[in-house]
């Protein structure tokens, strides 16, 4: 087993761990905002580590370049999707996006 194989195995294990965390978080949390937070480990750690393993294995060949593109796409699309989903969840729950008069955000943030 060469050093390259070990690096690939470590990166693959890291990626699997990220997606496993996402999977467990989706099952164990009941609040939709917590579930949105749990999307991050898969989209950040997993979506970078596994394409990085492809790059280590293949080098900057065609497959490596496409793997980098996939990693960038997943990495940058995840926050946008999370924002859009959280926005939709709030509008569905509160019927409007802006804070209502009876919502005290200072108390929610622990400032009071």
């Amino acid at each position, binding site marked *: 087993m060469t050093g390259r194989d070990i690096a690939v195995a470590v990166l693959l294990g890291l990626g699997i761990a990220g997606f496993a965390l996402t999977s467990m978080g989706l099952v164990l949390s009941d609040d939709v905002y917590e*579930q949105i937070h749990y999307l991050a480990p898969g989209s950040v750690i997993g979506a970078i580590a596994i394409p990085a393993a492809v790059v280590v294995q293949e080098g900057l060949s065609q*497959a490596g370049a496409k793997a980098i593109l996939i990693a960038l796409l997943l990495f940058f699309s995840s926050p946008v*999707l999370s924002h859009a989903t959280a926005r939709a969840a709030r509008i569905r729950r509160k019927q409007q996006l802006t804070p209502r008069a009876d919502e005290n955000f200072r108390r929610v943030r622990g400032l009071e």
Partner: protein
Amino acid sequence: MWNWTAIALLICLVGPFVRCVRGDIVSRLVALEGASSICAIVLLCLAEADRRVPFVDLSLTLALLSFGAGLVFARFLERWL
């Protein structure tokens, strides 16, 4: 090694699947977004396992389309459902 990674990632799809079955409609959208990113990486692993470089395009296409699909679903839930 790549095949085992793909199998492990397929097992990770159980979480989004359970949430799709048991959650409310926004939770199902969140689960769909998680499952899409897992599936894109599974396709990448399978392409790498079989040493078929053109198949990486499938993963790239899924990653691109799931982004648009997630935005459209979120907008749809926000306005009409």
